[in-house]
């Protein structure tokens, strides 16, 4: 199986040179995206077929001569390969339609299949060298895609910060694998699994830094909301929906598989970061006016939810509570899958809006539901799913996470007893704020009246893009209605990592999901969906049959004071004002300034909102200025005389030798 997967990845890579040649030609787009679609589909089928198969491995004579390139397709890799390539299939299909509006196809087409191939290779790699090469390949190809429109203001800065953060993350991962390999240099994952490193704690922290910066854990998230929206929308969807999941894969692989038995306090670190990430991510999202940036910040929130599940699973695993660990890990991985579906869908929707209006700023949109009804419908489904509302899929994974939290009082350690309820509260808070965030996103963009002529002139997006969004929306609904089926697909991966799997869900009565026992908790998405459909239809038909079905159009009522100007509507900023006032005054030091000119002065009155990104101000700004001051100082070294240089080299040598002599 792994050979078949590698062949498909090679096919993706083979598209790259073709894309370079035909990028500017008329059919280049269709050929490149069509071929990527086919290769991704093949990889998806291979991944689904190997979910329940025994792990298959292979070694190719590539890379380091004494190491070779090891690849392995086990249940965990198969699950993530499926997530990556389901996203890849949808994005390629979408791009066949969406890419028609691309102004610089030669900057997008060659890197797109390379990016897909990189992500698949990370998941397949079975030694540190291949993993890191694939990881860097993925980072750099996505960086090239971020820089596709490099002349747009801010994109260059986004690319620069992304490059720095990606390099720092990779450096942390190199240290992780260095510690895992130990002094003997066993660089294959099999050797790492066998060797129990004594530096497990340091390994976990470096893995958290390396994978966490790619996934977007606060405070390592700063590049994400800049870089993800800067890329073309189908690439944004891949970066947010899929690449962050590859980072989650990296963390799961290291923390659950390679690093050996976890210590209980690892989970405290993971849980604390995850809880803060979930709430901070959604609060940032609520403050954004740019639709794509809002979606990127919402990715940060969802990564927080995923890591809450992972942290719980680590805690349960450390205390040998395999059943509970299986539940927490299933919840987390199911959220990985769910988030990849609805976040891709939402980014596709944002891309459709961007194409139709040329706007990403919500304050300049509005009323699009009239011009783009189908896009509005699928985008609404995505918003409902990401807000964790039944009967869609986002609710299922959050419900499972809550159930895992409810098992945690049995944990013996006091640190966890105190932090887990707090994390539960943060998770609940982030779920409620996410609903607010997506009421705002959908309401301001699609509902109300058009705020600009561009929004007024919008037209429905093309059929192919709609098909791609429709497929993802259908997946969201199906995964919400029969979640047991998808949970069973995760069982082998979960079983291989924590030693136990959840009971098979598809056998449960009426397709319910019953994670532990029915008397404890169960949820049936199918019945909830059917009940809602039946009672809604019943109400509608009864009313139309027996009461009234007359309807008259009239001007809006608005308490008798309707104003024809669309400027009197609530905007994105004004909608967020109550929440900004409740949470933002602390978290963002939000201040509102009103400038009211004195009577007789003809200047307009102005209202200004001041927000501070504390993570940037406290952490990165001092770091950046420190680096530039140090660079300034070191600059003097350029102008030394040859004698000074030689003495410097000599001093350095002596000091190094002294250190070595004292150390050994």
């Amino acid at each position: 199986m792994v050979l078949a997967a590698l062949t498909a990845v090679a096919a993706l890579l083979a598209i790259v040179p073709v894309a370079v040649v035909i990028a500017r030609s008329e059919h280049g787009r269709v050929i490149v995206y069509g071929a990527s679609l086919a290769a991704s589909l093949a990889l998806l089928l291979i991944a689904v077929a190997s979910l329940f198969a025994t792990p298959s491995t292979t070694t190719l004579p590539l890379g380091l001569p004494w190491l070779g390139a090891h690849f392995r397709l086990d249940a965990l890799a198969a699950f993530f390969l499926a997530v990556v390539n389901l996203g890849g299939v949808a994005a390629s299909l979408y791009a066949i339609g969406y890419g028609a509006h691309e102004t610089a196809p030669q900057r997008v087409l060659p890197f797109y299949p390379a990016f897909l191939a990189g992500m698949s290779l990370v998941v397949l790699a079975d030694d540190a060298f291949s993993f890191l090469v694939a990881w860097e390949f993925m980072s750099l190809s996505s960086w090239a895609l971020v820089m596709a429109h490099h002349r747009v203001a801010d994109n260059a800065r986004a690319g620069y910060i992304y490059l720095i953060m990606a390099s720092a993350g990779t450096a942390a991962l190199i240290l992780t694998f260095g510690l895992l390999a130990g002094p003997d240099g066993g660089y294959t994952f099999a050797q790492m699994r066998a060797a129990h490193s004594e530096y497990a704690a340091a390994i976990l922290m470096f893995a958290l830094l390396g994978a966490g910066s790619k996934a977007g854990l606060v405070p390592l998230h700063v590049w994400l909301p800049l870089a993800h929206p800067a890329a073309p929308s189908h690439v944004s969807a891949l970066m947010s929906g899929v690449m962050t999941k590859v980072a989650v894969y990296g963390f799961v692989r290291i923390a659950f598989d390679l690093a050996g038995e976890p210590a209980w306090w690892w989970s405290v670190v993971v849980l604390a970061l995850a809880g803060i990430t979930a709430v901070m991510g959604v609060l940032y999202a609520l403050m954004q006016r740019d639709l794509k940036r809002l979606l990127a910040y919402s990715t940060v929130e969802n990564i927080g939810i995923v890591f809450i599940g992972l942290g719980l699973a680590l805690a349960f695993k450390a205390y040998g509570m395999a059943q509970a660990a299986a539940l927490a890990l299933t919840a987390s991985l199911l959220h990985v899958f769910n988030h990849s579906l609805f976040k891709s869908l939402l980014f596709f929707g944002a891309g459709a809006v961007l194409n139709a209006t040329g706007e990403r700023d919500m304050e300049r949109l509005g009323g699009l539901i009239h011009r783009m009804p189908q896009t509005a419908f699928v985008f609404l489904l995505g918003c409902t799913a990401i807000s964790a509302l039944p009967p869609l899929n986002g609710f299922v994974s959050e419900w499972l996470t809550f159930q895992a939290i409810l098992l945690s009082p049995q944990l013996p350690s006091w640190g966890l007893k105190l932090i887990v309820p707090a994390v539960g509260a943060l998770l609940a808070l982030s779920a409620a704020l996410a609903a607010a965030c997506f009421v705002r996103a959908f309401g301001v963009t699609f509902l109300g009246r058009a705020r600009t002529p561009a929004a007024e002139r919008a037209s429905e997006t093309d059929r192919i893009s709609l098909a791609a969004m429709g497929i993802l929306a259908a997946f969201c609904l199906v995964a919400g209605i029969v979640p047991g089926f998808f949970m069973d697909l995760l069982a082998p991966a979960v079983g291989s990592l924590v030693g136990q799997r959840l009971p098979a869900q598809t056998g449960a009565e009426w397709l319910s999901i019953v994670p532990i026992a029915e008397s404890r908790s169960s949820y049936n998405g199918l019945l909830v969906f059917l009940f809602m459909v039946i009672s809604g239809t019943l109400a509608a038909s009864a009313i139309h049959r027996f009461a009234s079905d007359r309807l008259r159009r009239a001007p809006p009522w608005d308490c008798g004071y309707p104003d024809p100007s669309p400027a009197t509507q609530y905007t994105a900023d004004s909608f967020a004002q109550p929440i900004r006032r409740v949470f933002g005054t602390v978290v963002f030091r939000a201040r509102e300034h009103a400038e009211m000119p004195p009577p007789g002065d003809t200047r307009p009155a102005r209202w200004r909102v001041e927000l501070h990104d504390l993570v940037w101000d406290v952490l990165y700004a001092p770091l950046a200025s420190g680096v530039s001051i140090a660079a300034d100082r070191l600059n003097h070294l350029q102008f030394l005389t040859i004698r000074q240089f030689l003495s410097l080299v000599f001093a350095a040598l002596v000091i190094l030798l002294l250190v070595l002599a004292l150390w050994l």
Partner: protein
Amino acid sequence: MALILDLAVQGAQMLLVLLLAPLLTGLVRKVKAHLLRRRGPPLIQPYRDLIRLLRKEVVLAQNASWLFRIIPYLVFAATWVAASLVPTFGTGLLFSWSADLIAIIALLGSARFYLALAGLDVGTSFGGIGSSREVMIASLAEPAMVMIVFTLALIAGSTQLSTMASFLISGEAGLRVSLGLALIALIIVAIAENARIPVDNPATHLELTMVHEAMVLEYSGRHLALIDLAASLKLLLYVSLIGCLFVPWGMAAPGTGVAAFTLGVFSYLGKLAIGGILLAVFETSIAKMRVFRVPEFLGAALMLGLLATLLRFVSGSL
């Protein structure tokens, strides 16, 4: 045969909550009027209002979208399903396991999500003010509610309402600090969720402080009827929920005879009446808050819920 009987009981509960909901609203209004020394509308006035609204034509704003027209049905369906999943006169009904308490809260969250969207659809300033405040209130009320659920679930060892109720009837739980905290928090959340004084005023239409009524300002005719009915159902749901969790006595266990069910129905009616009267007394004795006092009020509920959960984590007996 047993299945048909179970289905009949489940159906009876669905119809019961639907039919009783306006009566509870009428009762609260009547008692409030009496406390203010007014005569007040008759108890069945809400039914009359609903029937009149259903017969009237819908006056729809010119730029209202298709979503605006289906939202009343969505809100009604989600609320009705949620309300009929809360045990009223008996535990362990046929479909009681299809959604636990977390799912019931999330169903109410769905209803609110759609209603907040409806407030933004026509593009008026009143709709926007209502929606933005509603989501602000929800962003604190929902986590508080989840913390309450955590507390109760950790006491009863289950998130299934029927199991929780059976456990609490059995008296094993006894008196606990965490239960008391959870009750106070639940009452605060119930008041906020149902847009009652001091958080919102259900009786006003022309006040800058209104929340729920501002969101539904553009609705008329059958749409408004459905939304009003959903609001009544939600009030009934919260009273039933408090009854089922904190005064669970009298509910019929699954498989018991007609006598037990009759007792269950009468004790349920009694609980509803007492709940309605207490709500009316509370509402008349307190003044409405400014909007930005509400977060403090709900923050208290969130902290109480968190404290109760922490107590459960720290000690099994608190």
